[in-house]
């Protein structure tokens, strides 16, 4: 009997309706917040973006070298790579130092655009393509600007994504 009287009070009735509505909204909001935070494709998208950022940076590093800061430049090459590519750079370092010291060139690179072409989240492998503009300045003559079509393979390491292979897209024999 007491209950009946209470719900007849319009203020209480309105408050109950509001509370129920708020509970519904809270439940709905909680579910969508949970779904947003546990979205598989969002996690995959995050991995893709991480790989692309690391890949673009690594490709840029690999095309940047100042003969006056050779050690720093080559360290960054080695930092950006892993596996066979890394080993090649370490092995070839002395010869390369000599070469650049003679040529006295400064190379700078700018990433024009980049995309991940394949991504295996579990294996920790990714492929990237990067459109790059490289400017090489020699002691004599004008800086040479060229555009490079770079294809890279990335491998995930404990220290982030690193280049395990890098090369220019081949030209010529596919068309015609």
């Amino acid at each position: 009997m007491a209950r009946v009287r209470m719900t007849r009070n319009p203020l209480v009735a309105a408050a109950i309706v509001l509370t129920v509505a708020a509970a519904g909204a809270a439940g709905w909001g909680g579910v969508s917040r949970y779904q947003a935070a546990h979205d598989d494709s969002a996690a995959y998208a995050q991995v893709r973006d991480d790989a692309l950022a690391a890949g673009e940076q690594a490709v840029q590093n690999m095309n940047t070298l100042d003969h006056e800061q050779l050690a720093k430049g080559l360290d960054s090459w080695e930092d950006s790579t892993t596996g066979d590519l890394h080993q090649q750079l370490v092995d070839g370092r002395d010869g390369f130092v000599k070469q650049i010291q003679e040529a006295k060139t400064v190379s700078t690179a700018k990433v024009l655009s980049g995309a991940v072409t394949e991504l295996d989240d579990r294996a920790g492998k990714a492929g990237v393509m990067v459109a790059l503009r490289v400017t090489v300045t020699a002691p004599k003559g004008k800086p040479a600007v060229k555009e490079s079509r770079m294809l890279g393979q990335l491998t995930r390491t404990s220290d982030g994504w690193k280049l395990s292979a890098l090369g220019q897209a081949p030209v010529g024999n596919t068309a015609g």
Partner: protein
Amino acid sequence: MSTTRHLVNRQRRLATVAAERTAAPTPVRKPVEPSTVAEESPDEPEQQEEEKEPPSGRPPRPRPRLRITLPAVLCALTVLLGAFAAWAFTSAATLNDDPGRQNTALTDIARTSEVKGQITEAVGAVFSYNYASPAKADAAVKKYLTGKAVQQHEDMLAEVRAQAPKQKLVLTTTVTESGVELLDGDRARLIIFADQSNTRTGKSEETTYAAAMFAVDAVRRGGAWRISAIDTFTR
């Protein structure tokens, strides 16, 4: 231990029932141990405080407290739940609006390969030109280009079109690599690496090869992707 108290309580209970029959809403009381607070009917926990007051002989009257306290509790609940709902929705929206999530390149496998396939075909068609069949090139432009790309393409191929009949020129473009940089619903941006072969069959046959790289914006209309802008990275 409390036989007298038991009786007192019984009397009170009877009095309460009598009162309820007439007008006043009150809880039904049960016997209590002296030291504990009486159990109440579960609907009216607000009345617990009342229990500590010394029992009075007269039947309890309806208390105005009831009508204020329950709405107050409901209001507090509403505010708390409402605040949680607001936080949850805002937080979910922030997470979902993250540009990385909006971009479904590779995460949406079907769409990614659809746009890659169609744009590869489109690039091959609109950047190929045979002096013998200019109508085919015009048809490709209509089919695959839209918006700004129409004019950009016309400027890019103006020279080829002008010289084609005289030099018996055949331009063939083949996409060698493509990557989806951005995919958001019906919009996409792709990077294209392509090879171009340019064959002059006029006096003596001569073919030159060129490497091309550019990005295209694509839009999807009526189930088909079309190129809406071409970015050759020049500025």
